[in-house]
């Protein structure tokens, strides 16, 4: 039965009645085995390949590729760029994360309107999302590198302080904040481990693994989606794609994740 649970995966694991409830070690071991099994192959590789193709493809009203996009290390430099995001950009005078920067490049280089660039941020069954694939490609190009976004510019420091307030901001019918789930070590929601995101040891492990293929959703998900999904669960309305709050929160979390190694694209439940 245990072997079966491991093969069939998450669903079998969750409903596997033979795991004694009191034996936390057994439950934990099954979760570890499931993770190991997943790590053998990552469907996100496909999104990464599609993203690279899209990066080089002439698209939009200006029929231009993104190959001149400045992700912070100079026009066209993809390798290592994700390891230095989010950061302040002189041309927009804003702190930007990967996805908001891609929106900027789609507007300036390819001639899309901002609304067009932000229109389809997350894939759904039968409907791909170019920006999701491109984000996966760009993040993957920093794989194995040290995660070290700058936190020096006054606007970066301001974004950090705002992000910190937002992280602890409790609201809504359930009184939830980010810290409700991510404020303590060693907690779980159902069977899912919850990282304490202000603990560098834990933040370094998880923050740098997005975008990731999420088995439970059957698709690649970006950091923007992760935050949107958290606010959904927090009983908040829909978080605007590449909104200020979404970027400020990333600046806050990125500080604790600094020093980790980029392991994108990741693979998750």
């Amino acid at each position: 039965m245990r072997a079966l649970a491991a093969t069939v995966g998450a669903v079998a694991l969750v409903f596997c009645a033979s795991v004694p409830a009191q034996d936390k070690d057994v439950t934990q071991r099954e979760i570890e085995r499931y993770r190991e099994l997943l790590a053998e192959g990552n469907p996100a590789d496909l999104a990464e390949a599609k993203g690279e193709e899209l990066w080089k493809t002439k698209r939009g009203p200006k029929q231009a590729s993104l190959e001149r996009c400045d992700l912070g290390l100079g026009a066209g430099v993809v390798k290592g760029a994700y390891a230095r995001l989010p950061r302040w950009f002189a041309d927009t005078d804003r702190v930007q994360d990967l996805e908001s920067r891609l929106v900027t490049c789609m507007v300036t280089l390819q001639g899309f309107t901002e609304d067009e660039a932000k229109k389809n941020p997350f894939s759904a069954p039968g409907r791909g999302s170019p920006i999701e694939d491109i984000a996966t490609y760009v993040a993957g190009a920093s794989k194995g590198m040290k995660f070290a976004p700058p936190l020096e510019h006054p606007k970066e420091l301001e974004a950090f302080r705002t992000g910190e307030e937002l992280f602890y901001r409790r609201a809504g019918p359930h009184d939830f904040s980010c810290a409700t789930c991510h404020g303590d070590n060693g907690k779980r929601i159902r069977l899912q481990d919850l990282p304490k995101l202000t603990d560098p040891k834990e933040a370094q492990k998880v923050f740098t693994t997005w975008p990731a293929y999420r088995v439970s959703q059957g698709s690649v998900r970006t950091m923007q989606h992760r935050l949107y999904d958290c606010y959904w669960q927090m009983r908040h309305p829909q978080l605007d794609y590449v909104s200020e709050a979404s970027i400020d929160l990333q600046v806050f979390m990125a500080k604790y994740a600094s020093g980790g190694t980029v392991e994108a694209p990741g693979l998750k439940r």
Partner: protein
Amino acid sequence: MRSAALFVACAALVAGCTTPPPENDARREAQAAFERSFTHGNKEMFARVVGQDDVQALCSRYRNRPPADVAERIQKSQAATIVYPADGKLMGDWRQGEKIAEDGFGLRFTDTNQPNRPNGGNCYACHQLAPHEVSYGTLGPSLYRFGRTRGSGEAIQRYVYGKVYNSEAFTACSGMPRFGLHQVLTPEQIRHVVALLLDPESPVNK
């Protein structure tokens, strides 16, 4: 009001307080950023999160670790909100309580398409309860065999009903939602949850 809170914060720091922390600016900026970041969603839901009540504001400000006097103030004000059923009946049906404990439905922006479906309590997301459910969270304490050592008398029924209704009355800045105060669960549903925890026949107490 704000300076009073600040004074309390400073007093709590034994090391003393020379300059006011820049947190007030940060909070104002965070509120503004928040309001600019939820512009396309459900307007009614936005109205429920854009402001904060006293408990939410204080617990945010103190990072869920309020100084003793603030904690006492919160608990006192929240205890006054608890409304016990007029008929005095606090125990319902543990079988229905179990369903409520398993169900995470309700109040998310995708849940609006089923207006007649009751909300769940999703107790298992954070607590261990009946032993047959292995998919339980650990954000809250284990409640397995909660009623075994405590019995099912009126005093403990009132405690559990009150705790589910408004957890902040007992532990200031608890992570647990105020299910009754915010009408996430109905009084009838809370009674079922009380039974799940206290009924000797409930699997929680087997």
